[in-house]
Structure formats: C-alpha cells, structure tokens
C-alpha cells in the first residue's frame, strides 16, 4: 500500500471505529424519522376517548345541529345556564356549550364552559358547525339556495410544470423547497463537521508532536491529503448509511400506515383522491411521495455528492491550514471567522434570496463563487438549473479547491513544525511566500 494509502486508512479507521461515530450514524436517521413520524402517528391514531358535551340552546335555532362525531358526543339539555352548570359537574360532561337567544346578524354571547381548556381543535370544530348553520339560515333568509351559491364559488389551483431537463414534469414548489433546504443544510453541516475534524486532526498531530516522526517518513502534503481524503471517506460512509437507513425507515413507515407502491400509484392517478378507500392522511403522504418521484433523484444525489466533496475539499484545506498555524484549539478562533463567514453567508443566501427566486441573479452569482456554491447550488438544483450554469459552477469549484489546497499546503508544511511563536496573518503571508 502506498504511504498516502496508509494515512487514509488510519484516518478512516480510527474515526469510523469511534463510538460517537457509530451512535450518530445509526441514531441520526432514526431521530430524523421520529421527528416526522411522531406527529403523523399522533394525528392518525384513533382516540377511543369520547368527550361528552352538553348543549344548552336558548335560541332554539341549533336543535339537532350538533351531531356525534369521532370522539365527541353531544347532549341537548333544556335547562337554565346555572342548572346546566351544576348538572355537568354531576354527570361528568367535558363541557357546556351555551347558546343564548341571539340575532343572526350578531351571533354573540355563545360560550363554552369547561374544567379544562377546550383546545384549539375542538373550538374550531364547534365554531365551524355554528358558522355553517348560521350561514345557511342567512341564505334561506335572502332566498339564495345552496346550489346557486356553490355555483358562484370559484377555486383556482395553479398547476406548475417544470421544463428543466427538456421534459415536462409537474413541479411542486413546496416539496422542492423542502428538498433543497434539506440538501443545502446537510452540505453546510457536513462541511462544518468534517472540516473541523481535519482541523482537529492536524492540531492533534501538531500538539502531540507526532507530526515530526510522520513527516520524516512522508511528505507533509501527503499527510495533509491523506488526512483530508480519509475524513472525506468517513463523511461519505455516514452519508451513505444515512441514505440507506432513511429509505428503509421510509418504506417501513409507509407500510405501517397502510401504503405500498401500488396504492401510492393508484392514489396519484385518481383525479380527486379524496375518496373511497383511503384516509386523508394516507392520500396526503402518497401525494407527497409521488411528488418526490417527480424529482430528478440521480441528479440530486450526484449533485449532493459532488458539492459536498468539492466544498469539503475547499474548506477542508483552509481548516487544515488553520490547524497547522495554531498551537491549541483556542488559537484557532482568530482564524475561524474568515473561513466560516462565507460558508454561513452561502447558507443564509440559499434560504433567503434563492428561496425567493431560484434563478435570479443573486442565486446565479452565489452559485458560481466556489465559497458559496455548494450550499446555494443545492438549493437551486431541485428547481432545475441550466446545464451550462451547473457545469461552470462545478469547474470553478474544482479550480477553487485545487488552488486552496496548494495555498494551504504551503502554510501547512511550515506551520506544523512551528511551536510557541505567535502566528498572525502577516506570518501566514510570509509562509506563503517562502520557498
């Protein structure tokens, strides 16, 4: 095995065998899935609990309006408000809905009494029923029948078709935004996490003084490149395991709520899916996953890998140089700002300007500059990017990291042997010039 290969192997194995890596790699997707799954699960869960609600209707207008539905049971009571209040305490009703004698024009004074708060959902349900009933009564008063009104109502739904890649596909801004945001965020995190690992690795070798033994066997650049590649491999391993685990959890999750590929296809073919065999949650999830399918997945994954590697190599070189120029973790602080600033800026631009206009000039320029292109381009990618822009951006990124690696190597080879002397930007400038 070549010496660089030995270094890569060591960097990779020592990190992959760490407990923290194993835990994060396995728990990551599970935590992630749980964040999505728990609210859905809670929403779809059938509650067996039934809330009894007593209705006192002094107006007499809403007799029979409230019908029992899932989890709710309504009792009408002919009594005064005070009598009703005492009676609900005795019979254990959840609450008391009091409707005074009211004017249709001004339906005020309707009150819900309960021990514990009704909660937003119940409140909205009751309000909706009351509003509908009052609306209907008003319509009758004005002698408009419901059919006429329905005919008047107009609903426009804008269809989006993406022309990217030469073929028409229905586009969904919401899903695309979500995917772009996620990819952009992951790149941002990965570059920070693994870039910082390079820095810490360099610093460890420098402070533990083993570096002199190593570079009497290999060239400093071999050590730096070996370390960078080894850590990149760790990042990719984690990413691939995440992808596999996530898709596994995703399909298991779908089957758990009663969806398989066939029913998803079926639902997505129905003109109006709200229907017969499927619950509304199932339909929503099926539609979302159908839209996921409209995405150019290979392009997204390929783009992610390319921009992750490119961005990581670009920033990794800078992180390596910082590690070499510092004597301790505290020393690194002074150099961190100029390195992390463009990375943060790129992400901020991605989630603001690019979200607003994925093909605007801000988005374009920031996706060309190598320092910001990884995060910004990933945000743009789901919305479709012209080929030449993508190619230019990629070439610039490659040139960027080659130049940066060369510069960082010059700082690195001198910095790792320097101990105790105060290093500032001027000294770093001198190192760059040294033969």
């Amino acid at each position, binding site marked *: 095995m070549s010496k660089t290969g*030995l270094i890569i192997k060591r960097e990779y194995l020592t990190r992959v065998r760490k407990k923290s890596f194993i835990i994060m790699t396995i728990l990551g997707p599970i935590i992630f899935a749980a964040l999505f799954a728990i609210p859905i699960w809670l929403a779809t869960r059938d509650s067996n609990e039934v809330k009894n609600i007593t209705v006192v209707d002094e107006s007499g207008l809403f007799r029979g309006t409230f019908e029992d539905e899932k989890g709710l049971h309504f009792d009408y009571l002919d009594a005064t408000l005070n009598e009703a209040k005492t009676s609900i305490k005795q019979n254990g009703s959840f609450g008391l809905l009091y409707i005074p004698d009211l004017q249709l024009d001004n339906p005020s004074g309707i009150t819900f009494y309960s021990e514990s708060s009704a909660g937003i959902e119940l409140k909205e349900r009751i309000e909706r029923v009351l509003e509908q009933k009052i609306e209907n009564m008003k319509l009758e008063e004005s002698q408009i029948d419901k059919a006429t009104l329905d005919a008047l109502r107009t609903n426009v739904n804008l269809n989006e078709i993406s022309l990217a890649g030469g073929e028409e596909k229905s586009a969904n801004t919401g899903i695309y935004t979500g995917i772009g945001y996620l990819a952009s965020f992951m790149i941002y995190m990965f570059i920070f996490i693994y870039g910082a690992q390079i820095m810490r690795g360099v610093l460890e070798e420098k402070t533990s003084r083993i570096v002199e033994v*190593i570079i009497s066997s290999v060239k400093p650049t071999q050590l730096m490149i070996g370390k960078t590649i080894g850590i990149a491999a760790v990042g990719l391993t984690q990413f691939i395991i995440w992808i596999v685990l996530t898709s596994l959890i995703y399909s298991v999750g779908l089957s758990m709520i009663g969806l398989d590929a066939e029913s998803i296809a079926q639902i997505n073919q129905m003109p109006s899916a709200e229907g017969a065999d499927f619950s509304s949650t199932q339909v929503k999830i099926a539609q979302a996953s159908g839209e996921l399918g409209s995405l150019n997945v290979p392009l997204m994954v390929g783009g992610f890998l390319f921009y992750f590697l490119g961005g990581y190599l670009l920033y990794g070189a800078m992180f390596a140089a910082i590690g070499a120029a510092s004597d301790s973790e505290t020393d690194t602080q002074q150099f961190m700002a100029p390195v992390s600033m463009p990375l943060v800026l790129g992400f901020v631009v991605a989630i603001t300007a690019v979200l607003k206009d994925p093909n605007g000039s801000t988005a374009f320029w920031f996706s060309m500059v190598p320092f910001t292109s990884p995060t910004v381009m990933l945000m743009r990618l789901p919305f479709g990017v012209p080929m030449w822009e993508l190619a230019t951006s990629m070439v610039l990124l490659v040139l960027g990291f080659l130049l940066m690696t060369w510069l960082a190597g010059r700082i690195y080879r001198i910095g790792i042997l320097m101990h105790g002397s105060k290093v500032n930007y001027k000294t770093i400038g001198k190192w760059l010039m040294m*033969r």
Partner: protein
Amino acid sequence: MKNDHILEVHGLTKRYAAHTALQDVSLRVPRGSIFGLLGPNGAGKTTLIRIITQILMQDEGEVFINGEPLSQEHIRIIGYLPEERGLYKKMKVGEQLMYLAQLRGLKEKEARQRIRHWLDRLNLTQWAGKTIEDLSKGMGQKVQFIATVMHEPQLIILDEPFSGFDPVNANLIKDEIMQLRERGSSIIFSTHRMESVEELCDHIALINKSRKILDGTKREIKDQHRSNTFIVEHKGSLIGLGGEVEVLQEKLLEDNYYQTIVRAIGAQSPNYLLQRLLPLVEVHRFEEKIPSINEIFISKVKDEDKEVAYV
C-alpha cells in the same frame, strides 16, 4: 566518495526569513560510530537533522547517505527520534507501531514480527492493546524508542535523547543503543548537554551559531586541547621543583598532604615530570588534567565570541 561514511554533508546552508540557521556546514559520520552533534540551543543542530531526515530542504549544499545523494529511498534506513516526542494518544500501542513501521517502508508481516520482538524485549507485550493514554510516561518513551529503531535503521538520529527519559529508561536506552551499534548501526546524538554523551561518543562535531567550529574523534580533540597540566597529590612540599615545571596551584588537604596542579613547560612526557617529582615527595595521585568536551566547548565558544567582538 567511499562508503566507509554512512553520512556525508557538504556545505549545507539553510536560511530562514530572519536568520541563518546553518552556514556552510560539512560533516562526515563514519560507519559504525557514535557521533556527537553538540552545540548550545539554537545553534542549528535540529535544522541540520531535519534536513537529513528530509523534513526540510536545504538552500545550498548536498547530503549523501552511503555515498548516494539523499532521496526518498533512504527513509527506510534512517531512524529518527525527535527532540519533541509524541505519539497518537488514542491509538493502541500495537497499531501505532504497525502504522509507523509501514510508513517507514516495512512490510506488514515483517513489521508484526519486529514489533512483537521489541515489545517483548522492553517488557511491553501486555500493553500492546492499550492506548498511549493508558501508559505511564516512561512506557510511552519506550514505545517511542521502539518506533525509532524497529526497522533496524542503518543510521539512527537521536535529538536530545536523554532529556525526556527518566534515569531508568535513559540507561536502558543507552544499553540498547550500544547493542544497535554492535549490530552495525551508526548513531548520531544531538545534544546541548555535552556531559551526557561524552562517554558514549567516539566522534564529535561542535556547532555554534550556525557554523561548525570543531570536528574529529574524541581522542583527537582532547589531544589537541591538552595543556600538559597534571594533578598531583603528595606528601611533603614541592618546594625546590623548578626548571621546566610550573606550579599553578597548591592546596593543603590535610596535615602535610597537598594537592598541586602543575604544568610541564614544553613537550615533556608525563614520565619526565614524575621523575622530577619522585625524589622530592611521596606521590599518592598523579593524573593528567584532560579537559572535558564541555570545557573545550566553552573555551571554543568564548574564543568565537571574542573574535566576533573584535571584528
């Protein structure tokens, strides 16, 4: 260029931005010798070593190993223990040695054998699976020594070898070094503490302020710096000793028992001096006062400084 020198250095110069670390330094290290590279801190020793170990590039001059220009091939036959020592703290002893051995160019199978041999030899076998963090400082030092010599290098370079080691390990290492030499390795000691290596070295080079100021076998150097001075302990007084002998100092040790430092003027042999002494006093001790390397070094450095001052 004959191969009876493991290392030859010609006209080596290295400049840094603010100062010159080495100026026109030439050296020859005979095969099988223990070579002392001596000089005060900041004289340029570490820079010289870093050039030989290919950590730094010289600005001028040439380095030859076994008569061949220094190249990547020679990494395999050089063992280097830097002044600043350290290992990967979280790596296991066995894995760490394997990694370093492979970086030095050893094959995995061979490295495994050597590591086993050395761990056994220095009583570290049961620690092979532990990380460096778990080891005591002394054990860590032994591991570092193994890392330096396990590939049986022809040239072993030890920078300040005893400064970091505790006395027990220092002795152990000394013994191991002597044995390595017997098996054919050449050793370069670099240190600013002359007394620590004086007994070990057979060749010496002194470096001061980036220049070599003295170089040769220990014997030669000492001979050059002999001053024909003798320490005599004797009963009775030396009064009456005249002629070609000068009394530098006389000290009464006990009743009628003296220690006198005398210098023979001209190139008389010790025997001549003794013959002069014997009729006068009862001689209890007679010893030539040979300057230590340290003393030679100090006087040399002082001379240099004077020269600089006059310029």
